[in-house]
Structure formats: C-alpha cells, structure tokens
C-alpha cells in the first residue's frame, strides 16, 4: 500500500506548547537553578571519601608547614636549616627535645644532625625543595604530555605512529640512566642550577605516560558526534583540541597528575640519595634520608623524621589521587 503525501501533522510548537518535554520544574513550582557543574558533582563525591579528605588535610598541612615553618623556627629559636651553632659543644647530634647533658629542651623537637643543625628546620625546608621539584616536574609533564598526546591522538595516522614510537623508545630507556646522563652531561655550576637541571631531567621523563593517557582519551573522544558537530560549525583544529577535547579528557589527566607528584617526589629522593640530586647546602627529603641512613645505628632520629614525613606525604598524595579517580569516574567504583 503506497503512502501518499499527507498534510503534515498539525502540532503546535513554541514555548507555550513545549510542555510535554519540559521537566517537572513547573509541576513542583521550584525555581530555575543553574545546575551543578560536573566538577562540583565530583567535588561532592570527593568530600565523601574520608581517606581522601584526610590525605588532603595532611598534604595541605605539610605544604603550609614547609612554606612558613622555616621562617617561624628562625624567629623562635634562631635556627635555620643550615645554621651551625658557634658553640663547639653544640655541634653534634642531639636526640629530640634534648640539650647537652640529656636534659629536656624544646628547641629541637626532631633533634639535631651531626653538625648540630636543627632537623625540624631541615625537614621543612627540605619539604620546600621536594614539593617544588615534584610540582614543577608535574607541570612540565602536564604541559608536554597533554599537548603531545592530544596532537598525536587527534591528528592520528602516520604522525601519530611516529610520535608514539618516539614515546616508546624513550619509555624503553631506563629513566634513571637518562637522568644520570642528563645531569652528568650538563654539570651545573651553582646549587640553583643543579636544581633547575633536576626539574628538567625529571620533567623530561615523566610526560611519557601522560602523553599516552591523553592520546587514548582523545582518540576515543574524537569520534564522538560533538567533535564532528564542532568541525561542522567551522571550528579550527587547535581550538577543537583545546576547547572540546582537552576539557573532556581532564578527569584522567588530573588523576594521573596527582599520582605523578608522589612518583616524582620519590624519584627526586632516590636521585638525591644517590648524590645526583640536590646538592648541599640545599636539602631535600631524599638528601636528608641519605645523610640519616649513614648514622642509622647511632642517631636513628636523623633518618626517622625525614623518612616518616616523606612517607606520610606520599601516602596522603596517593589517597588523594585515588579519591579523585573515584570522584571523577563514578562508574569505575561500582565495578
């Protein structure tokens, strides 16, 4: 039975007739509210995760203590991380809260090192360096990794093959060797220069995984219709990557970046432990641990305090990262 062209169904349109698909707002008479953004939703889920909240509190507390602690200690006791007491009686390692003669004394809550320097001040300023290294390296990895991965994933084809093979090659080289070679090839003249090289070296190897993650995300996103729709409205490729693809891939990126911070911190500690990282008089948690390890049997507090601080920080950061992953990807938690 052939269909004959009929008059179009007379259906009224316009706001006044859009009732059928209007939500229940009008029925319950509630106000129009601009709904929560996806980020606020994620934040709420994160706040429900006790371990992640605890981790955040510890991380924030440590960061604040590292930022302001050293100058407070300087003001209160006159000690900074590298001030060696003038009195030769004091240039040796004291246990926590102890003064010469084994009496209780409040000045050194974590004791002193072999030269009589205050370990608390050293741990806190070591924290500054460790956090800075971790943060800057993570930023470098974000910057390179996201742009590299997004470009490879979006453009695809031969360029993608080439870019990813480069990543594979870099992956296959042990990063310690790359860092050692980098640091050895470019001997720094000043401790600050050494630090900058450390940032560079750690950043240079930490973007590889980030690039892979972003590439995978972008590849699955670029075939979605909204990308095609954006192309169909004439948006240029760089803008599509920046405004449409990267924001959609941000969840995994944030999670991985949070988990990169402790990894880089550990690498820094490891390199400093080997004597390749931070050079005296600057200190980091790694170099403090290296010093402390030499005197472990006699002055255990020299290792325990920097070690425990760092372990706590790493653990907390990992809790935060896990919490973020659950919060940003609620489907994953159910399985």
């Amino acid at each position: 039975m052939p269909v004959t062209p009929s008059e179009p169904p007379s259906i009224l349109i316009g706001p006044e007739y859009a009732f059928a698909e209007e939500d229940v707002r009008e029925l319950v008479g509630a106000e129009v509210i601009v709904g929560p953004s996806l980020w606020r939703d994620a934040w709420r889920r994160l706040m429900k995760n006790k371990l992640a909240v605890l981790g955040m509190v510890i991380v924030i507390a440590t960061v604040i203590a590292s930022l302001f602690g050293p100058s407070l200690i300087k003001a209160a006791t006159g000690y900074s991380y590298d001030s060696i007491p003038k009195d030769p009686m004091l240039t040796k390692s004291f246990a926590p809260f102890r003064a010469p003669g084994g009496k209780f004394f409040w000045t050194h809550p974590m004791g002193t090192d072999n030269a009589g320097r205050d370990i608390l001040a050293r741990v806190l300023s070591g924290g500054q360096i460790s956090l800075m290294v971790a943060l800057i390296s993570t930023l470098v990895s974000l910057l390179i990794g996201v742009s590299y991965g997004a470009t490879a994933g979006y453009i695809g084809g031969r360029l993608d093959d080439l870019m990813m093979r480069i990543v594979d090659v870099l992956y296959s080289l042990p990063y310690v060797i790359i860092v050692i070679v980098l640091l050895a090839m470019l001997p720094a003249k000043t401790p600050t220069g050494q630090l900058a090289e450390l940032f560079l070296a750690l950043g240079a190897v930490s973007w590889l995984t980030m690039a892979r993650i972003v590439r995978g995300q972008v590849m699955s996103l670029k075939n979605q219709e909204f990308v095609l729709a954006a192309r169909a409205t004439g948006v240029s490729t760089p803008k599509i990557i920046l405004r449409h693809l990267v924001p959609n891939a941000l969840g995994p990126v944030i999670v991985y970046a949070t988990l990169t911070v402790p990894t880089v911190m550990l690498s820094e500690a490891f390199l400093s432990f080997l004597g390749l990282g931070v050079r005296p008089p600057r200190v980091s948690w790694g170099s403090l641990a290296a010093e402390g390890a030499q005197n472990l049997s006699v002055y255990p507090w020299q290792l325990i305090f920097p070690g425990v601080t760092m372990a706590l920080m790493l653990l907390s950061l990992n809790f935060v990262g896990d919490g973020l992953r659950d919060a940003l990807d609620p489907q994953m938690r159910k399985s």
Partner: protein
Amino acid sequence: MNTNGNLLEVKDLRTYFETEDGVVKAVDGVSFEVRQGETLGIVGESGSGKSVANLSLMRLIAEPPGKIVSGSITFRGRDILKLSPREVRAIRGKQIAMIFQDPMTSLNPFMRISKQLMEVTRLHLGHSKGEAREHAIRMLEVVGIPDAEARIDSYPHEFSGGMRQRVIIAMALSCQPELLIADEPTTALDVTIQAQILELIKRLKGETGASVILVTHDLGVVAGMTDHIIVMYAGKVFERAPTSELFGQPGNPYTRGLLRSVPDPAAEQGNLYQIPGQPPDLARLPGACPFAPRCERAEEICRREFPPFVQLTSEHSSLCHFADEVFAESQEAA
C-alpha cells in the same frame, strides 16, 4: 549566484574508503541539486551512503581512510572540493550548517550551552561576548526553549533529548545559513517530539528562506516535508523525483519495495512486507545492478549489466533496466 536557481549542485560525487577488505565505495557517482529555498529529501537504508554524501558536502570525511575521489560540489558557483581548508571552514556553520542524528552526543558535555552557542557566532559573525550571548538567548527563544535566559548557562545533561535537539537547531541556524543539512534529525527522538522538531525546522526554513537537505530512512518524515526526493541504494542514486510523483508513481522497483514496507495503520493485521535479503557489501559491488539479487523484477540482464539512469519525465529519473515499465505499471495502479 547561479543563474539556474540552484544553490547547490553535486555532480558525480564519489567518496571511497580504504579498508582492509578493499575499497568501500560508500558514495559512487551521486548527482543532485538543491534549489534556492527548497527541501530535498534523501532516503535509503542504513549504509546506503546518505550520511557520507552529506559529510562529503562539507568536506568532513576523515582522511584517511576516506577520500573524495572525484566529482564536483558547486555551492553558489564555487566548487567546495577546490577550496582551501580555511575557506571551507568559513563556509561551515555560516553558509552550510548541519544538524546531527543524536542530540545526546552532539553537544559537548563539558561546556555550558551558552558557550557552545556563542562559539559559532563569535567565529563567523565576529560577535563580542555580549552580542553573542544576546544572540544565543534570542536563538533559544526562536527554537522554543522556555526561560531561555535562565537556562542558557545549563549543561547539556540538564536538557531532555528534544530540548537538546532544539539547542542544536538553534546553533545550526544562528548564522542564518543558506543550506541546512539535517542528518536524521529525529531518529533518536520519540514520536511526539519528532513532529515538533520537524515542524520547527519547517517553520524556521520558511522564516529564513534557507534550503534544506533532509536525510532520513523514515518515508513518513520526507512525505510532508520535502519538494524533491532522491532514493539512494549502495552508494548510488536509484531514483530522483518530485515528492508527490515519487510516492504516487515510483519508477524503480526498489522505491516500490520501500513504499510497500511502510506499515499502514489502516491495513488489516497481517505480515508486514519487507524487501528480502541484505544490502550488498560495498567493498564487493558487482558490475551489474546492485539491487538485482533482492529485486522482484530482476531478469537476466539485471545480473549482467549495470542499469541505465532513465529519464522518465522532466524531473523524474530512475536507475533501472525496466524503469519505463515500472513507471507505467505504477501509473496504472494509481
């Protein structure tokens, strides 16, 4: 502007895809034209090349694996296939806009509606932020979204499917395009909303004077909406005719089969007609008529030779060895 009143002329368009199974000829020698202010319907089964043809019009085929092998797409006297990518981008969204099938996925879930609407006009009309926002609110009102001012900062997930399709239409029309390509704009929506959306497109088309290409596999949709229809099968145009003529007097066995397989609510309960068999593998098309294995009328010649494109009346052509006979038969039946 063209002298013959054609806004768009597509000639012998061929879009092929390289796959592991060989070259898939998704669109193979398609020609059609769209006149100023008219609506052209493109119907066909899934995989008949409708969408690929339309994506080719805007040069949105992913290369590789796809490639527009030959043909010309003349839009307002310029061949789109010969323009630079930058010139094509300037046309996309401004002169030719597109509405996609699934409103659930064609909006960016991480961007507020306002930002997505403003992106288009800031890009093509050079609007400032304030102008673009005002324009966006006006467009939302035009497509019938209540409380446009309050809802413009919502995220896509806060809208229902029909509302989202309205937003997409608002976005497509915000630069007053001369050609609107609607690629199955109602497939993902339920029936009452379908009618609303179609009416909306029809009304806005009347107001702006734009031409529309309506792609669908729903014959009921094209019946009330279009001036001309082309029927596609296996990447080729099987029949081209004015709408009423196509429905009244089909000149191609495939079109007849399609029309017969539309459920008729008035008919007695019984088996629904279906065209037997499956559409052919586009990577292994025979040299003969691609519809022959499924065709009721097929004779020996159909399995041997590729059919001619027979001109039946001034505006009616059909790709069939027996086009004239089929046409005459349907004339008798009518």
